[in-house]
């Protein structure tokens, strides 16, 4: 109720400014029509739709088909097609064929022929890199899928680096990505469903799941969410991610974003749903829990003790990254008695000549660390290492010598900064880094009590988070059947269940025996 009151108030304050939109009704009407049998009319229609010749990569080629003795033209976008095969298998055949024949498919050797009559539909096809052939007197147009999109090949993963295990990563060509998944799951139940989600640029997403595993309600929910998106353009999967999330303003992510096909495949096998999109070198895994965001594929590739070792290390790093700085502030400001006397003397000695309170010191160094980190990402790679060294040297050594900060602060910041790198998921990483600042502030305000109070509030918030109906800490709490792959994992043959919170159609991965 209160919210509504505020909203009306704000709506009064900022109204959307009036603007005159140019009506495109005539174009919409044109697109609803079918093509005519008149050659000239079709030619002018499509030339005007594609603004030929102003639009330079639109190619229209007119010719006479000898065997039919009729005029015809093809239209395509030269940057999206395989021009050589158009020349060899379509144009040359049409021009050179002498044998009288009424059937186009007999003349042209290019496979995958289809016909269409609706102008709007044909326009969409052409935009997708298809070649359209119009023949004088025909009420249908012939469609050839000559699409050839340029992009890079399959490369190594850049962001989720592991030592043991597959190295290939998704790229911008969605056909390659689907192929990478199919290569790993050779099963006819693997469904790749496509869906157009935006109106203007007509971006399509691909839902990938296993038909005999996935929970239908979950699938339906995700499809509904996709359908409810009302946007002109969604160019990238990472933007789609924000459209899909239940709480887009939340600090914590609820969708897993990965560039590793092996990871995606293992989630599909558990009954999750994957979203792929052309032009995005990654995939979205839904639903995601806190555990899936913390885990790394390498936990499973390594032998059980080693995998558990790095996993425990990662959990320790998580706590170190979030709490070290705030703990330092809390202890030095409020609970000095905790530090052993010798160490306390040492800290006090080094802090003696520093004019700032310790919270300012910590905030300064945290900011500096974030600056180095961000700058290190953006600088051109040849000077990257130099910046790192300069940053570390100048900000560390010189700041201490200049009495701006005390040496122990550098240790604290280095520890928490280093630990924050261990969380490989980029969204979780940001969440942790931002949470750290909040903890620093509350610890500065009320010491360990403030930090704990804030932590409890955060815990209440986190357990109430849901990703497509799945609680954030499932299956630990609320409990459901799973292979208990949470903080530590079992040996692979003991992991007998798919996660129960997904309600997969087939819960048991392998029977006992």
């Amino acid at each position, binding site marked *: 109720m209160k919210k509504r009151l505020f909203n009306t108030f704000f709506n009064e304050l900022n109204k959307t400014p009036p603007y005159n939109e140019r009506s495109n009704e005539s174009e919409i009407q044109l697109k609803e029509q079918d093509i005519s049998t008149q050659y000239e009319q079709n030619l002018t229609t499509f030339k005007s739709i594609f603004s030929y010749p102003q639009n330079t990569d639109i190619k229209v080629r007119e010719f006479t088909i000898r065997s039919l003795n009729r005029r015809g033209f093809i239209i395509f976008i030269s940057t999206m097609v395989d021009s050589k095969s158009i020349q060899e298998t379509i144009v040359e055949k049409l021009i050179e064929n002498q044998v009288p024949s009424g059937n186009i498919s007999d003349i042209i050797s290019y496979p995958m022929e289809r016909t269409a009559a609706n102008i709007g539909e044909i326009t969409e096809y052409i935009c997708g890199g298809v070649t359209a052939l119009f023949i004088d007197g025909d009420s249908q147009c012939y469609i050839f899928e000559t699409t050839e999109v340029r992009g890079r090949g399959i490369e190594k993963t850049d962001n989720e680096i592991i030592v043991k295990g597959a190295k290939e990563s998704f790229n911008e060509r969605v056909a390659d990505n689907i192929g990478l998944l199919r290569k790993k799951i050779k099963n006819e139940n693997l469904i790749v469903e496509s869906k157009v989600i935006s109106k203007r640029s007509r971006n399509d997403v691909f839902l990938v799941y296993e038909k005999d595993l996935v*929970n239908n*309600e*979950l699938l339906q929910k995700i499809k509904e969410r996709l359908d409810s998106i009302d946007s002109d353009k969604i160019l990238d999967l990472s933007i789609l991610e924000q459209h899909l999330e239940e709480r887009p303003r939340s600090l914590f992510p609820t969708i897993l974003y990965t560039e590793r096909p092996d990871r995606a495949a293992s989630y599909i096998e558990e009954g999750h749903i994957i979203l792929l999109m052309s032009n995005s070198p990654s995939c979205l895994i839904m639903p995601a829990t806190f555990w899936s965001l913390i885990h790394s594929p390498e936990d499973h590739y390594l032998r059980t003790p080693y995998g558990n070792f790095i996993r425990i290390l990662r959990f320790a790093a998580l706590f170190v990254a979030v709490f070290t700085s705030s703990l330092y502030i809390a*202890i030095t400001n*409020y*609970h000095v*008695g*905790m530090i*052993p006397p010798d160490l306390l003397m040492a800290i006090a000695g080094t802090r003696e000549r520093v004019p700032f309170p310790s919270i300012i010191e910590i905030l300064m160094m945290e900011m500096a660390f974030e600056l180095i980190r961000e700058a290190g990402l953006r600088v051109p790679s040849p000077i990257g290492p130099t910046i790192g060294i300069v940053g570390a040297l100048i900000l560390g050594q010189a700041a201490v010598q200049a009495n701006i900060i005390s040496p122990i602060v550098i240790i604290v910041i280095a520890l928490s900064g280093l630990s924050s790198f261990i969380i490989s998921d980029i969204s979780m990483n940001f969440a942790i880094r931002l949470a750290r600042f909040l903890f620093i502030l509350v610890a500065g305000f*009320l*010491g*360990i*009590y*403030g930090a*704990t*109070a804030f*932590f*409890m*509030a955060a*815990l*209440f*918030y986190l*357990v*109430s988070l*849901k990703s497509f*109906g*799945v*609680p954030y*800490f*499932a299956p*630990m*709490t*609320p*409990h*459901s059947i799973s292979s208990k792959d949470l903080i530590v994992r079992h040996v692979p043959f003991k992991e007998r269940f798919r996660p129960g*919170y997904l*309600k997969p159609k087939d819960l048991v991965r392998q029977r006992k025996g």
Partner: protein
Amino acid sequence: MSQQSGKLGIREYVSIAILMVGMKPTGDLPTALYSMVQGAGWMIPLISAGIFFIPLFLLVKTMMLYQNQNLFSIIQKLLGKYIGSIVCLIIFIISSSIISIDTRTYTNIIRTFYFTTTPNVIIYSILMLVCAYGAKKGIQHIGSAAYLVVYYAVLSLTIALILSFQDSNIQGIFPFWGPGKLEILKSASKNLYIFLDFFLFAMLIPYFQSTKDFRKGTWVAYICVCIQISAAVLVFISLFDTSLSGIGYPFHIEIRYISLGSYLPNVEIFFFVIWIMGAFIRFTAFLYINVQMFCHIFKIKDYEYLIPALATLYLLIGSISETPFDVSLIIKPIITNIVGPSFTLISIILWLTAWLKGEFKHANNKEMV
């Protein structure tokens, strides 16, 4: 999906129960017990649990008659509209005063031991703020948070108790029967309030996946908790011996006393963090139960808007008394002496009414059919 309906699982319930009841020896309970029966203080929780077992058993039995109905609706059903409402109101007032006193006690502890210069009202309002936020999230999320915390809470309590072994003296428990067997029995019946939370948990029944979970969880938690409390009191008695009667909050003295080797002499902050986490959960769940009671009595549907109001009210009530001394030694005994007998009485009356009305036979017949 059925998980979305947000039901309280048995693990979550047991965690809440352990945190709500099992953390009581970290307050002023051991001191109160010691001043009553000296060395036999550790027996009191066990004997009280034995005595309270009867009303609790009857209560659970009565509750099992009606599926998915909370305590208040059953009270109103069995005792009639008017008497039922009055009984509900009495329970609500008692539990409200307990939450006010207990939150104040915890605020006092934090102020006395850790934040001596911070004003009471700030510590208190932060405590209530976090509890109100948690309570607003609903019982299933309180349960989840409790489950995430409970292992560390019990572990840290255990470690704290174990670390004090080297300086404790088990002979502190002698004379074994303290002031006498009859005296122990009397004090045990006075201390039934230790387990009163179990009585209040019956308010949560509609949130369980099934009423059977409530029965099972109650007994599991009941056993865990009475062992935990008794063990904690035993350790405090053997560590402090006679001086225990003069120590307000023995757990906090104890964690100041212990050390991890010679290099880390003061480790109280570690234990404080986990203790306060348990305390937050405890009061969040308590606040939630109270809000549910209030909603039931006054027929309010949207409980979320009520939480901040009630939290503020408890804060104000809790702030009335001037000193910690007033709270622990004057007001608290009055409440605790009322609570045990009255709740026992209510449970027995409920069961008797159900029995006289023939509800049990009725239920049996239903099962037969």
